[in-house]
Every structure is written in structure tokens, then in C-alpha cells.
């Protein structure tokens, strides 16, 4: 059962502030969805390996050319052009032309 305290803790981890109204709504929704998710516990998965990626399974079946997992994903480690500096800064909400600017991090 998710509590008010859990909602505050998770909001903090997720860098969300949330209004009182949003917190109340999320408390209700998280409990409803997690209650539904709990049906996964009907299954005994003791001997089942977690599956994080589809590609790792494709290798098992030899469906890709890699002989080891993700072998095909490797490419030569060679320098290539990257985004020019001014392009990378173009969308910045605040910048001094060289760096991104943010509110002061260290208080004296």
C-alpha cells in the first residue's frame, strides 16, 4: 500500500514538486495500478531469467549475425564528427555562449 510519505519520497527522487491535488490523485492512482500489477505474484518465476532486452534473445536463436550477445552492436571505435558547439547550445534556455547556465549550485 502506497502512503502519502511514499508519494513524497518518490516525487523527490523523480524531481517533481506536485500540488496537493496532484499528490492526492497520484496516491489513488498508484495504489490502483500497483494493485493490478500485484497479480504478477500469482506466478512462480524462481527459475526464470529476467528479460531486459529483445536482442539478447534473438542471439540465442541465431536470428542475428552475432555469435555472442550483442556482437553485432560493436562498431569501430573511431572519432566521428559530433554536434557543433553552437548547435548544441542553440536550444539552451540559458547560456553564456560557451556553457549552459543554471541557478547557483554552491552557496557561500
Amino acid at each position, binding site marked *: 500500500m502506497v502512503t502519502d510519505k511514499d508519494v513524497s519520497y518518490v516525487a523527490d527522487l523523480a524531481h517533481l514538486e506536485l500540488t496537493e491535488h496532484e499528490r492526492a*490523485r497520484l496516491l489513488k492512482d498508484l495504489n490502483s495500478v*500497483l494493485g493490478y*500489477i500485484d*497479480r504478477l505474484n500469482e506466478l512462480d518465476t524462481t527459475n526464470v531469467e529476467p528479460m531486459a532486452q*529483445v536482442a539478447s534473445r534473438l542471439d540465442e536463436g541465431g536470428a542475428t549475425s552475432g555469435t555472442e550477445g550483442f556482437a553485432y552492436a560493436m562498431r569501430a571505435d573511431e572519432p566521428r564528427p559530433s554536434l557543433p558547439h553552437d548547435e548544441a547550445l542553440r536550444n539552451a534556455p540559458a547560456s553564456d555562449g560557451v556553457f549552459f547556465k543554471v541557478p547557483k549550485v554552491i552557496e557561500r
Partner: protein
Amino acid sequence: MNIDLLTVDSARTAVLEKQTTATALVDAFYNKIDAEDGAIGAYLTLCKERAYQLAARVDALADKGDALPPLAGVPIAVKDVFATKDVRTTAGSKILANFIAPYDATVVTRLEDAGAIILGKTNCDEFAMGSSNENSGFHPVHNPRDRSRVPGGSSGGSAAVIAAGTAVASIGSDTGGSIRQPAAFCGVVGLKPTYGRVSRYGLIAFASSLDHVGPFGKSVKDTALMLQQMAGREPLDSTSADVPVPNYLDQIGQPVRGLRIGVPEEYFGEGLDPEVRSAVEAGIQELAKAGCEIVPISLPYSKYAIPTYYVVATAEASSNLARYDGVRYGVRAREGKTLAEMYRRTRDAGFGAEVKRRIMLGTYVLSAGYYDAYYLKAQRVRRLLASDFDRAFTKVDAIVTPTTPTPAFKLGEKMDDPLAMYLADIFTVTANLAGIPGMSIPCGKSREGLPIGMQILGKHFDEPMVLRVGHAVEHAMAG
């Protein structure tokens, strides 16, 4: 020229045979968009300058009598989750309302290299999270078949432009059904290829292990022609598979006699609208008449698909969306005094309710003490769900199901109940979890005239089989 009837093939042929020019086609589509899209809301941004430049390039080739590329002059639309250089790219979110992408997604480059002309960027649920397009940070999309209803989601705009005739073809992304479900609701064809078949480079990430890129079209053949240009290994996406790309037209029109078609009992149970059931059963009858062997099968873990999906997808989303913090791009909230306060206020103001809900759920299932119980547990069940399909495909060549439990619902109908909304994807999430290809094709209508979709699933990289079966049903239902 009646542009409503144009297909991928006929648009290119019209330009090739000088019945029209690419520029005239672009003009005609923008006129139609100006006149009709206001009531639908499918487009978020039009990229006219870029479209006319590309059209001029195609027309110059045609004038010289040079060979035209395979999609020359075909007007298409691109879901606003794909980066388009120098064009606003929002992912349907206010937090990216001012974002101008500095590069093109791989599929965008490939389609333009093939001569396709991008008319604009289509509306979608924010960060592709939703099943109705009502979570767009800008405005909802109305279903062109019945404007009081949703077009489905999250690629609602990309499905609606095909139904409305405001683009010939389009692309979308599908993390739990976001191509197939809106295709079913709008009565068009939508194809989600195998995981790794199409590069995700330049696709704004929602849940990376579940995100797929695919085409929409008026016909099975149109989606095959689009996929042909989109598919293939590309090193900028490390999960892009090194598997040869077949000719996707080869199997289209081949007889289906003797194919074994699996019909999973779990997809025809409680909660399935009777009209959807009878429409899909009629489609299956057509396959039987064409000589397919109809094989009842079981996918016993199906009922765990939605809970598995909402753990895996939200966990990955909470991680992927951590980047939206108001530092490098996007809209920053002004009043933050400290860095942490700036982050929080930016995210509070920029994200909509559903995105916050999923970030919270995903953060919760990854947090200390719950990681094993929820996240690892769901990954284990994901393997069981994938093994359901492995077993089934030893017995059958393709699997046929309804795409959705009901036809398109009314705008506003499910907005207050997230769980009810999540269940709209109950038949589509399994293919994302397993990474297998799936397509939705129109399969009759309800008494009210609402489109119904049939889903065809195939083995990894067996898009040719999916297209072959899809075409057979399409052909039989039309005749």
C-alpha cells in the same frame, strides 16, 4: 486529380508519368490540410519550406527524365516524436514546445533520401504515453471517421492523417500498441516491425526496450513500400539488427493456401466487444476459405501482459525522461532559485498528468526495496510472455487476433480512469514485450460505422508473412 485516392504507388507514378508534379501534389495536400485539419487536429507543425524544397528536387529529376527514387513525390507525415532538423520537434509535450531538433532521425533521412516529402509533424500523446491522443500537451485529435471519438494513441495524428486523406502515408512509434491501436480506430493499416528492424536513432525515447518505429498507410502494400525504405542495420542504434532486408513486396499477393493461422483463445474472452468478435471471426473465415488451416492455440501468460508492461515501460520511461530538466533544451520554469528547485518547477510545469503518473510509477518500481519485487519480477514474466510466442510459432505461421477490445471510444470517456485506458492496449502490448512484428488492418465496421481492426502477428523478422496474410484478408474483405 482526386488526392483522396492516392496511394504510395500511384502518387509516385503520377509524378513519373507527368500527370502532375511533386510541387502540385504538395500544394494540393496543404490546401486540404488548411481546409480540413482544423476540425481534426492531426498536425502540430507543418514544414512547408522543407516540403517545397524536396518537391522541387523531385520535379527537377522528373523534368530531366532521370530515374526517380522509390518514394518520389509521396507526401507523408511524421509523428512528432521523430527529430527533424531545423523543424520544431515536441513529442507532444509542453516541455519541448520550443525545441528545434539539431539533426534528423534515421527514418526521416531514409524516407527523404527515397524521395518522400514530409508535409508536417503529427500530434500524439505526450512522449507517446496514451491510448487516445488526449494526453497531447497541445490539443486532442478527433477521429476522422467520427469526430466525437478518439483516434486512438499514441500515434493518433499519424493514423488520422491517413483516414482524413491529409497525407498518403505516415510514420509512428509503437511502445505498447501506439501504431496498431490507432490504425484500428481510424480504419487504416499500421505496421509495427520486429524490434531492431528499423533504427530508433532520433526517436525521442519512451521505453527503449519496447519502442518500435513503423509505417501507416491506406493499404498493406503501402506500408510494405514504406518499410522497405525504413528497414535495415544502422550503427547509430546499437539494437538495430544486422539481418538482411528482404523485398517486402515479394510475398504480397502470394496464395495463402496451406498456411497455418493460430487463433489464441485468450484474445477472444471476456471484455471483447461482440461486434469486434464477429468482425474478426469473419476475417478468419475468409482466411479459411482461402485455404488456410485455422489452428486454435493458447498463449497462457497473456493476462499478465498489461501488468508486466506497466512496470517495464514506466521504469524505462522514468529513466529516459530524467533528461528533461530545463538545462540543455526545452522550456525552463523561471522562478527556481536553486538548481533542484529549477528542476522540479520545470518538470512540474512541463509535464502533463499522465507523464507524471508514469514517471512516479516507474520511479517507485525502481526504488530501493521494490526493484526485485516489481522490476525484476516483471522482467521474468516478460520472458514467459515471449516464450508463449516461441511455442506458438512452432505450430503456426502467423497469429490472428482483434487489435483492440472495442472500437474507438468517445473523447473524455476514459480520462478519469487510468487503468481502463491501459486496458485499451491489452491485445497489442504482448508483441512489444516479445519484440515480434504485428500489423493492424481494417476488418469490417460496427453497426455504428466505426472501423474494427484485425491484428496479425508473426515470428521475429517474418514481416513478409505478416504482410502476405494481411494482404489476403484485405483482398478478401474488399471483394
